[in-house]
């Protein structure tokens, strides 16, 4: 197992390198550069040239990449081109915890709601409840979640006043867990709706598969109670494919939340990335890409390890 993990980690290095090369290339192919947004008749071309020169933007792409990589391997993400003088790591550390908190809580909500729903739906197959859950899940898949977010803001925040409208905390109040949760509930729930619908469907079909297995019939024949059969014998096996889904969800931790972060004014890394992309703030873009790619690699590794934990048949 340990050797497996080490091997996987080593394999990640060339992978991350390749990702960074491709990302850097694509980023540079986009029209414009950080000076493109400084369009203003009162700005002289030679001033812009001096700016470009000072950030090495006139060097060849290979030189620019090499410089970035050299800093990167020393753990230095560089400084923002737009927020001049501000280290990229400072921006990331300010933003990343917000995104991770939001994503973890929303994933948690998604799992604790959809797995029981899926299981229930599977055991009551073709019943009214099953159909109802199916219809709601499909609606959930089909509805864009920024829209759900806006509707909930209008109803729960504006009309009923139950939740604050956006932000992570109330300004000017001392830190309180309650206040943080109060701000977190709505965006986390809305973000969870995106995954919930799919997860419910997955756990339903996975459970159905398992329930048709011989060992379930055997367990039933042995006279175990229905509950024991479903939760002890059935669910544990049904969860294995769901772990894959979890692994696949990890990468969306960064990209998937951009719109929700925007709607709820949640200062996360997705928004940072979007801003940086519009401004062509190359060091910030690359930092987020590298972090996202690393998360993907870790997510997949984690999913593989969890397989072994849940399924004794799997060994590395």
């Amino acid at each position, binding site marked *: 197992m340990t050797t497996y993990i080490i091997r996987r980690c080593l394999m990640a290095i060339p992978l991350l390198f390749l990702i960074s090369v491709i990302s850097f290339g694509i980023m540079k192919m986009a029209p414009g550069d950080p000076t493109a947004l400084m369009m203003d008749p009162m700005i002289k071309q030679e001033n812009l040239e001096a700016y470009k020169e000072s950030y090495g933007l006139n060097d060849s792409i290979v030189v620019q990449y090499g410089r970035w990589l050299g800093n990167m391997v020393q753990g230095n993400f560089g400084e923002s081109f737009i927020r001049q003088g501000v280290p990229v790591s400072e921006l990331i550390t300010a933003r990343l915890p917000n995104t991770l908190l939001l994503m973890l809580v929303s994933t948690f909500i998604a799992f604790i709601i959809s797995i029981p729903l899926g299981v229930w739906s599977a055991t009551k197959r073709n019943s009214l409840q099953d159909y109802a859950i199916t219809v709601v899940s499909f609606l959930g898949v089909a509805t864009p979640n920024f829209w759900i977010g806006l509707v909930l803001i209008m109803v729960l925040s504006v009309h009923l006043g139950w939740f604050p409208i956006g*932000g992570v905390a109330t300004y000017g109040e001392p830190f309180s867990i309650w206040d943080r949760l109060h701000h977190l509930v709505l965006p986390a729930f809305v973000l969870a709706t995106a995954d919930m619908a799919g997860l419910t469907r997955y756990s339903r079909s996975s459970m159905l598969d398992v329930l048709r297995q011989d060992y379930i019939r055997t367990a039933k024949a042995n006279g175990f109670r229905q509950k024991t059969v479903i939760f002890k014998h059935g669910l544990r096996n049904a969860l294995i494919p769901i772990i894959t889904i979890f692994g696949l969800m990890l990468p969306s931790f960064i990209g998937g939340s951009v719109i929700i972060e925007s709607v709820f*004014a949640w200062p996360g890394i997705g928004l940072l990335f979007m801003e940086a992309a519009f401004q062509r703030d190359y060091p910030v873009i690359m930092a987020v890409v590298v972090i996202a790619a690393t998360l993907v690699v870790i997510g997949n590794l984690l999913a593989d390890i969890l397989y072994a934990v849940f399924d004794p048949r799997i060994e590395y």
Partner: protein
Amino acid sequence: MFRKPLWKVAALAMVLMIAACSQPEEAGNIDANAAEKEGAEAEGGNLVLATTAAPTLFNPYYSTDTSSSTIEGFIFSGLVTVDQDFNPEGDLAESWDFTDDGLRWTFHLRENVKWHDGEPMTADDVVFSYTIPKDPDYVGPRGLPFEIIEEVNKIDDYTVEFVLSEPYAPFITITAQFEVLPKHILGEVPIAELGKHPFNTKEPIGTGPFKFKEWKEGEYIALEAHEDYHLGAPKLDGLLYKIVPDTNTSMAQLQVGEISMAGISPEYVGMAQDLEAKGMVKLESGPSNAFEYIGYNLRNELFQDKKVRHALTHAIDREAIIQAILGDAGTVAHGPGSPANWAFNPDVPKFEYDPEKAKQLLKEAGWEPGPDGILEKDGKKFEFALKTTSANEIRQQIAEVAQQQWAEIGIKTSIEVLEWSAYVEQTSPPNWNFDAIVAGWSIGSDPDPTWFWHTSEIEAGLNYNGYSNSEVDELLSKNTQIADLEERKAVIAEADAIVTEDQPNTFLYYPEGYLAISPKLVGPSYNAANTYYKIHEWYFEQ
């Protein structure tokens, strides 16, 4: 939508930049019920503003975005500012005078000005700040407004003299508005490193009505009152500048009173009017300092005949566009400029909606309907592409109306909608890859029209049309050399009238700006020149 005394950025910034950030709209109107904010005094004395785009850094010699310059306006002060009608007004300078040749300007500084750290502000700070962009090591965007400055001299602790290389009227409305930085803090910093100095993002110290308190990354910028402010201590306790990327969200916040005032973009005017009817906001409006137009590429021979351009304008029903697309948030434009601006000339040639006249003019220009109804001349059909950007929905709708109305007089157009940066790249120098564009310009605190129409601005400037008229060139070159306002106004008016007669553009409308203000907030009023004029006198009613 806020436009600060804003010059800094200049004479003009593309109006589009503002619209470029707007999000996909939620369908349907927002029904504003309920939402009584509990305990209105909970807001205390904090003015809360919201922006869709986060600021970048607080140093006027390096920043280029609107959010940053708005906040710089709170933290720092310039020699002069403008009042609500673009008239220069003393800020750090109590008064100023200039020699008859317009080359020597003397500013008499106030003696009671204190930096936020308690140090007195003197002539040394002014000399230091105004020579930054002239330094050979300066790496920043603001060289141009300082080019005409030959010398900056300290006469005594509270008197500064500027020597200009040529008379330049915008010196007072653009250059002299640049904010002054503290020499006692930055004086020793090498100019090459000033742009990256932590002063700009961590601890800016100015002389403005509000002191920097905190920048919470991605969330807000908090400022607090500067009790020693030279025009009097602000009545507000502080100011909170929130970053709310989605306009729908900020409108919801406005609805429940979490935001004290907000500029309202055209899509949300209906909602804001509802809120006003319910007494939840005061809504003020007025012309914004901008104009919208369809611009023709005069390099294209289709548009080289003035009669044809007149015909194109006669074919467009601008009243209908304003009513149907803008919900009446604008007035018909006949020429360039803006009614919000002191230099505006309302008395220009007018080209009313008259499709019959349009057909007549085209006929005179030699265009006859072909077998398919499309006009032809020398075997060439009258067809061209109309470009605009996806960043602005209103312009896309205008393009559709124009396409239809031109079709009625036998002109065929295709519409091309481009992503913002692609649009800019195609339409600006040196590509000018367009036949016609639906676009708009925002004018700065100085009305100098040189940027748009002078022949010298064709090669690399904003004269995308490629418009050239020697008479106009002469007037425009003269305009910035005239110190007398009335005299200068007459010269600009004459140039505007000639441009209108030439119709390099079909001028569409002057957009109306809207400002929603919390009913308890006393002080702000809508104006195109200086949204935060005399902010230190604003307060909340109990």
